[in-house]
């Protein structure tokens, strides 16, 4: 024991040594932390810059070939791009790049998934935060979070192998890969994020509001929809928006479940194709530097803008809650 116990002198010099190392390391560690913080912004900017740059030739008609030399390439007809339902990129006669059907595909699948996921998610959040007690609450929370951990390709697989024949059986449609299938799968995928964000919002409502409602004679249901919903509405809205963002951005599951055929949807039993799935399926085959290639990146920019607007809105709304909370 006596060997391991340092004398006062050596203890002192040891401490001074450590202090020197700490003094030296401190700025380095601060720098590292700064870098970590900024890297998120740098990466996002870099990705946006790259996607935007790759899509630019389709808009300007000018492409840099290298060595500072620009070449003229075919320009994309932006009116056709936004209004035409025809997406025929590989046509030998006349390739057409219209994303209207793809946007409507994304929109219809997302809307249907939200119609299913919002009531389900809010209901689950209300149950977990207000009604479930003790162990059942903890188990539910873990299970719901586990739902978020299922890879999207597994969801796609479920849509393809389980939902597809079920939809055929129940509705009598010839194929079960359609808006309904993708909408349900996407709804199940968005539920966890809606539940966890809206549960946080509900739990952030001060207990005094609940007591106010109960003391005035509200039963539990009235307390939820007359007191909690108005009090937590910003957080609940943010939860829904994040769910929508998840829906718009999802690729693999919708690629597998929608039927992936370019189609203007007229009913929920129509197969459609989404913006994301188009990029995923075609980018590998598009000729680099080709119009098709640039247009796919332009679709990426469109998705980027969608996601950015939705996330920003959600973020501003959540910030709004905090400002009110400080009152």
């Amino acid at each position: 024991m006596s060997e391991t116990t340092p004398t006062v002198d050596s203890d002192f010099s040891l401490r001074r040594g450590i202090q020197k190392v700490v003094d030296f390391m401190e700025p380095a560690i601060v720098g590292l932390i700064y870098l970590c913080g900024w890297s998120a912004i740098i990466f996002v900017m870099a990705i946006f810059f790259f996607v935007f740059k790759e899509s630019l030739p389709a808009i300007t008609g000018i492409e840099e070939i290298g060595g500072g030399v620009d070449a003229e390439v075919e320009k994309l007809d932006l009116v056709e791009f936004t209004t035409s339902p025809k997406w025929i990129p590989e046509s030998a006669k006349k390739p057409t790049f219209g994303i209207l059907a793809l946007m409507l595909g994304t929109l219809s699948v997302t809307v249907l998934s939200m119609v299913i996921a919002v009531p389900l998610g809010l209901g689950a959040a209300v149950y977990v935060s207000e009604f479930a007690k003790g162990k059942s609450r903890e188990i539910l929370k873990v299970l719901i979070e586990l739902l978020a951990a299922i890879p999207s390709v597994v969801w796609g697989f479920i849509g393809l192998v389980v939902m597809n024949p079920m939809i055929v059986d129940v509705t009598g449609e010839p194929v079960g890969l359609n808006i309904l299938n993708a909408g349900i799968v996407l709804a199940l995928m968005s539920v966890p994020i809606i539940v966890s964000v809206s549960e946080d919002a509900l739990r952030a409502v001060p207990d005094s509001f609940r007591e106010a409602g109960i003391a005035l004679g509200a039963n539990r249901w009235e307390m939820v929809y007359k007191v909690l919903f108005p009090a937590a509405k910003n957080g609940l809205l943010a939860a829904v928006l994040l769910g929508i963002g998840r829906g718009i951005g999802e690729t693999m599951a919708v690629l597998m479940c929608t039927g992936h055929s370019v189609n203007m949807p007229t009913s929920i039993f129509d197969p459609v194709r989404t913006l994301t799935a188009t990029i995923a399926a075609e980018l590998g085959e598009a000729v680099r530097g080709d119009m098709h290639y640039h247009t796919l990146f332009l679709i990426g920019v469109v998705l980027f803008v969608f996601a950015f607007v939705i996330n920003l809105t959600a973020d501003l709304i959540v910030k709004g809650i905090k400002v009110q909370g400080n009152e």
Partner: protein
Amino acid sequence: MSTIATESSTTQYPPVEISLADELSIQTRGLNLWYGDFQALMDVSVNIKKGIITGLIGPSGCGKTTLLRCFNRINERYGNVRTTGDIEILDKNIYDSDVSVRQLRRSVGMVFQRPNPLPISIFDNVLFGMGLHDAHKSLSRSERADVVEMALREVDLWNTVKDRLKARATTLTLEQQQKLCIARLLPLKPDIILMDEPCSALDAEGIEKVENLIESLRDEYTVVIVTHNMAQARRATDECIFMLLGEIIEHSKTSEMFLNPQHEKTEMYIQGRYG
């Protein structure tokens, strides 16, 4: 003792209350309450008279808030609460199976320690209780406005907020919020108003105004008020109940309790020697 005697001369019992003295608003008999294994109320039997202001005093953890929260059964929202004994409010045992908790809470209103107006407009806050009891569906728009005006006038808030009834109630000052919390009980025409340290979040000026308001509620409503503030108990109550460790130690007229406490513990507490 002499200082107490001189100061308490301001709270002389008005003769009006004596004639009401026999009519009871709340009666408990052998009331016991447990939170899990902890017994918070022990064999509490009190008679709270109608139309006066009764104060519940005692050191922290003595069960005064617990007792108050029994009167509208709001205690029951925590799962681990168990009670035995009777509470009769307006000649009806509130633990009877045919009692509607909703109706009970309609006639027994509650004001909390921290003002808790709901995050909706001032107007909607006043009407919130009526909305729950389906009482305002039959009212026209102008009748609703009258209800709101009357309630706000009664708590002396009308002139301050009449131009911004649509503003969120949480933008009011704490004193105004607390008045609003009292105002929202009034359209339900309660018999009893329970107050759990209603002034503890307010500044001196707010306390004075809210106390004046509580004073004005006497006669029309039975007010039961929990307070930590001895000066307030003396100023604002007609009778006082002193509690200690879940038991009622003394219940008498405020003037008598502060002049001439019957128990040594009461005397020590109101003189500030502990608690």
